[in-house]
């Protein structure tokens, strides 16, 4: 009896609270994040959020390709790395400032995408997945060792790279001496937020355009799509290009945030895997999924896990175990919620809403029936 009332109470609560349009929620979150640095949080936390912004963008670009168009890419690190190495090499050999090297690096990344995409997306089969999985790993090896070593700096990588907004700028506006440095970090935080918002808006617009509809039609049934006159291969290439654009942009920008570009930071398999986890944690195929997932992942990974320790395990042992637990958790999550956690939650809320509607209608019908009976 009590359970029944609790359920009723919850569903009416949910109806009121969660009826808030998602755009309003997004705006609220955005406001929160803008004002966060004013609360003077730990450096560590600020940097955690900064990373959330960048990797959420990376995950969102992956989700467009995989969740919305259905083309499985397992090597998003590739474009992330190309963007990063592109801007680094341009700086190393030409000395251009970031606002020149970044767009060029992005252009390079986008030009490469049809080279990989065209053969893989045209052929029927799991080719894109296999090729994209292998490519960044191969580049990783190639960059680390031999012939390209003098160019790419091997494992040590290329650096230091100039930050996006140089220290001198802050000095000229009044932050003297050492006080300028934290401002650079702050600038990185906000630039990351800007990147996330701008790319989210653009991806949102794409998703709600005819192109976005075509993407979903390809995801659902690419054969029927062809029967509707859609050049499926061309749209797959477009999705791949947009996705690689944002990935390269994120990579190039992030390179200037952490000021050093090396294989383990930008071409590692864990980086290919990261957008996948983030998207799955949040909800694949949605727009908010990668964002939510990024928050969940980083807060748990950086904050919760860093501050807890299991006794008996030494440093490296704990790192290995932690990664192992993480991979295991991902497996469990996907089996239980194949469409992502946030998706599961929103689906449940929708069910509750429908149930509530039915409930209301049921009650109304019952009342009418009773009235008729007593006449």
């Amino acid at each position, binding site marked *: 009896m009590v359970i029944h009332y609790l359920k009723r109470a919850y569903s009416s609560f949910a109806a009121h609270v969660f009826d808030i349009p998602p755009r309003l929620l997004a705006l609220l979150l955005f406001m929160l994040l803008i004002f966060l640095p004013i609360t003077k949080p730990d450096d560590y936390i600020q940097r955690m959020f900064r990373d959330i912004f960048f990797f959420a963008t990376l995950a969102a670009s992956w989700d467009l390709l*995989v969740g919305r168009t259905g083309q*499985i890419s*397992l090597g998003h690190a590739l474009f992330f790395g190309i963007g990063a190495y592109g801007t680094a090499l341009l700086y190393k050999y030409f000395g251009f400032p970031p606002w020149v090297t970044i767009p060029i690096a992005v252009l390079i990344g986008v030009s490469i995408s049809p080279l990989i995409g065209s*053969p*893989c997306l045209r*052929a*029927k*089969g*799991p*080719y894109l*997945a*296999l*090729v994209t*999985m*292998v*490519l960044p*790993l*191969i580049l990783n*090896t*190639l960059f680390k*060792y*031999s*012939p390209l070593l003098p160019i790419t700096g091997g494992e040590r990588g290329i650096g230091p790279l100039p930050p996006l907004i140089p220290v001198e700028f802050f000095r000229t506006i009044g932050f003297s001496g050492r006080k300028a440095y934290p401002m650079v970090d702050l600038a990185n935080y906000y630039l990351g937020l800007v990147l996330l918002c701008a790319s989210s808006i653009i991806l949102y617009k794409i998703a709600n355009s005819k192109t976005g509809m075509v993407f979903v039609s390809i995801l659902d049934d690419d*054969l029927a799509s062809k029967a509707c006159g859609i050049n499926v291969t061309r749209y797959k290439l477009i999705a791949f290009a947009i996705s690689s654009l944002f990935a390269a942009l994120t990579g190039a920008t992030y390179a200037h945030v952490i000021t050093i570009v090396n294989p383990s930071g930008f071409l590692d*398999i*864990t980086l290919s*895997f990261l957008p*996948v*986890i983030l998207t*799955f944690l949040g909800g*694949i195929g949605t727009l908010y999924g990668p964002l939510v997932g990024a928050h969940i992942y980083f807060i748990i990974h950086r904050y919760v896990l860093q501050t807890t320790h299991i006794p008996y395990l030494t440093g*490296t*042992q704990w790192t*290995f*175990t932690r*990664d*192992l637990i993480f*991979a*295991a958790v*991902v*497996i469990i999550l*996907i*089996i239980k919620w*194949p469409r992502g956690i946030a998706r599961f939650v929103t689906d449940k809320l929708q069910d509750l809403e429908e149930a509530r509607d039915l409930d209301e209608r049921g009650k109304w019908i019952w009342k009418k029936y009773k009235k008729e009976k007593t006449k």
Partner: protein
Amino acid sequence: MIESILIDGAIAGGIYSLLALGFTLIYGVSGVINLAHSGFFMIGALLFATSGAFLLPVLEPLGVIPTFILILALILAAISVATIGGIVYKLIISPIIGDDVAIMVVTVSLALIFQQIMLLALDAAKLTYIPVAPFIRGATWGVRNESLLAFGVSVTLFISLWIFITKSKIGGAMRAVSQDREVAMLMGINTERLYMLTMGISAAFATVAGVFYASSVLVGQAPPHMWLQPLFSSFAIVILGGLGSIKGTLIGGFIIAYTETLVAYLIPQGGQIVPAVSLVIIMLIILIRPKGLFGKRIEME
């Protein structure tokens, strides 16, 4: 030098074919792309070394020839990994079968778990690689007997699988399911159990390949990243030979192995470029003839 190329290529060919065979088998029968396949390869080598380490000191003093002890260890390792494979299928893959994205994510996670296990094991033993004892010590005709054994076993297993698939009832079921799953189910074939079995066989083959890879190609060392390079090569083999074709895997395996050996020997610093070789071959095939040499014909969908 030509002799070395021929021999190295042949050995690698046998091993790679065996590894790729497991991968293409599970794909052909159930449509699952098991990205953790070469992870089984690595764990197999680990389990072999561990059981060898336990059994040798116990059985050798009793007068049992080391070779047989190690063969026993190999069989144990293969059975364990096959069981793990079956369990993995049942618990992890079966719930999400059909959802290709989820399966790939899950298998990649699994591969990472295997890598972490390997790293933890190495950390505990304070080693940088797992030593894998050779079956046969000494050399014949300038070639380590070990390598000959590897080649011989690979080819034997290959032929056994071929016979199994073409002649036995279960093999027939596998072929049926790989052609049309729904009809096969209508005919009463229990796909769940079949997939589990296929996974087990696939994992067992990977184990044998892994053990021989470590003992022959890597000269007795099993480092924690040993699963990467063979992964690239198996992808290339499977795409070249045609996904789902056993013949193709055998032929493709030797072609890739020889290409890699030639590159390693003839091009300066070739050893480093070898991963790129797999990639180039993959791209070429996708461009020219995506279904590979003997792949299943996928026309409309």
